C-alpha cells in the first residue's frame, strides 16, 4: 500500500463510517491504483467480521453489584479518610497533613521513650542511695545538691581530668 491517503482512510474507516468528502478521496485512490480496491475490500470485510462479535453477557444487576462493592469498600475505609474527602482537601494537602501527623506521632514516641529512660535512671540512683545503711557511710555521702546535677554531668562528653586541680585537692586532703 503505497498511497498514504489510502492508509489514512483505512485508519478512519476502522473506527467510523467515512464522510462524503472521505468517500470522494477514496474513489480517487481507487482510480489511481486499482489494487487499492482489493486492499480496501479486505479491510472492510475484516471490520464486518469483527462487528459480528456479540456483546459479552452482562448480569442485569451489574451496576447494583458495583455500587454495593463500592459501599463495602467505603465502609472498610477509615473515617479519617472520609473526613478529609468531605472537607474537599486536595491530595497534596492530605499528604502533607498525613506527614505532619506522622511527625507528631514520632515526636511523642521519642518523648515517651526519653521520660521512661530518665525514670529508670532515677530509680537506679535511688536504689544506690538506699543501699548505704551505716551512719558513717551516710555521712560520707555527697551532699544532695551534687546529685541534682548528676544527669547533666553524666551526659557531658568525656574530657581529660584536670591533673593540676587533682594534685591541689589531694594536698588539701592530706592536710
Amino acid at each position, binding site marked *: 500500500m503505497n498511497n498514504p491517503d489510502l492508509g489514512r482512510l483505512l485508519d478512519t474507516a*476502522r473506527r467510523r463510517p467515512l464522510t462524503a468528502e472521505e468517500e470522494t478521496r477514496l474513489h480517487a485512490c481507487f482510480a489511481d491504483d486499482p489494487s487499492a480496491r482489493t486492499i480496501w475490500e479486505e479491510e472492510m470485510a*475484516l471490520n464486518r*467480521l*469483527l462487528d*459480528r462479535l*456479540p456483546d459479552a453477557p452482562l448480569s442485569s444487576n*451489574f451496576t447494583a453489584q*458495583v*455500587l454495593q462493592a*463500592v459501599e463495602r469498600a467505603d465502609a472498610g475505609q477509615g473515617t479519617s479518610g472520609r473526613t478529609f474527602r468531605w472537607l474537599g482537601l486536595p491530595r497534596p494537602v492530605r499528604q502533607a497533613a498525613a506527614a505532619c501527623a506522622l511527625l507528631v506521632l514520632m515526636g511523642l514516641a521519642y518523648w515517651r521513650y526519653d521520660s521512661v529512660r530518665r525514670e529508670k535512671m532515677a530509680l537506679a540512683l535511688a536504689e544506690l542511695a538506699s543501699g548505704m545503711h551505716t551512719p558513717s557511710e551516710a555521712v560520707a555521702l555527697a551532699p544532695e545538691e551534687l546529685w541534682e546535677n548528676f544527669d547533666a554531668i553524666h551526659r557531658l562528653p568525656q574530657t581529660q581530668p584536670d591533673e593540676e586541680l587533682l594534685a591541689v585537692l589531694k594536698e588539701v586532703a592530706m592536710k
Partner: protein
Amino acid sequence: MSTDLELDSDASLMLRVKQGDRRAFERLVDKYKQPVTNLIYRMLGDAAEAEDLAQNVFIQVYKSADRYKVAAKFTTWLFTIARNLCLNEIRRRSRHPATSLDTPHPEYEDQPLHQFEDAKTFSPPDALLHGELEQKIQQALGELPDSQRIALLLCRQEELSYEEIARVLGCSLSATKSLIHRGRETLKQKLKPYLRTGIWKGSQK
C-alpha cells in the same frame, strides 16, 4: 462517536465522583459497563471472569477517583485501568494454569477428569446458528499476542483515537499503529475463507 459534549459530560461526572457523588458514578458505570466487559471478555474469553473483572475496573475507578485529572480523557483512563487488570489476570493465569475440562480421567481414559452440568445449553441447530463464525473470529483473536489483541480491540472503541490508544498501551503512536496493523494482517490470514462472504464455509483452512 465521541463529541466534546460527551467528553465534558464524562469529565464533569468524574469530578462529581471525586466529591463522593454515587449517582454520577452510577451513570458512568451504566454508560461504559458494556464496552469494558466486551474488551475484557475478548481478552480472556471467559464471560463470568470478564464480568467480575469489569466490576473490579469500576471499583478501581471509584477508589482512585481523586487521582483523576480532567486533562486526561475519561475513557483513556478507564481503558488503561481495564488493560492493566486484564494483563494482571493473564499473568496470574500463566502462573496458575487451570485444568482443561477436556483433560482425560487418569483411570478411565474415555471420561473427562471433571464433569459439570452445562447451565446454558443450546439445542444442536441453535448452537450451529448461534455462532460458529463468531467462535472462529474469537478463536483467531485469542491466538493473537496479547499486545496485538488489546491494541486491535481498543481500535474498535470509537471513543479512542490512535493517540489515546497509544497512551492506554503505554507505547509510541507508531508502535501502536504497527501492533494494530500486524494484528489485522494475521486475522486476515486466519479468517481468509470467509472474509468475502462473511459466512463460514465449514472445514476450510
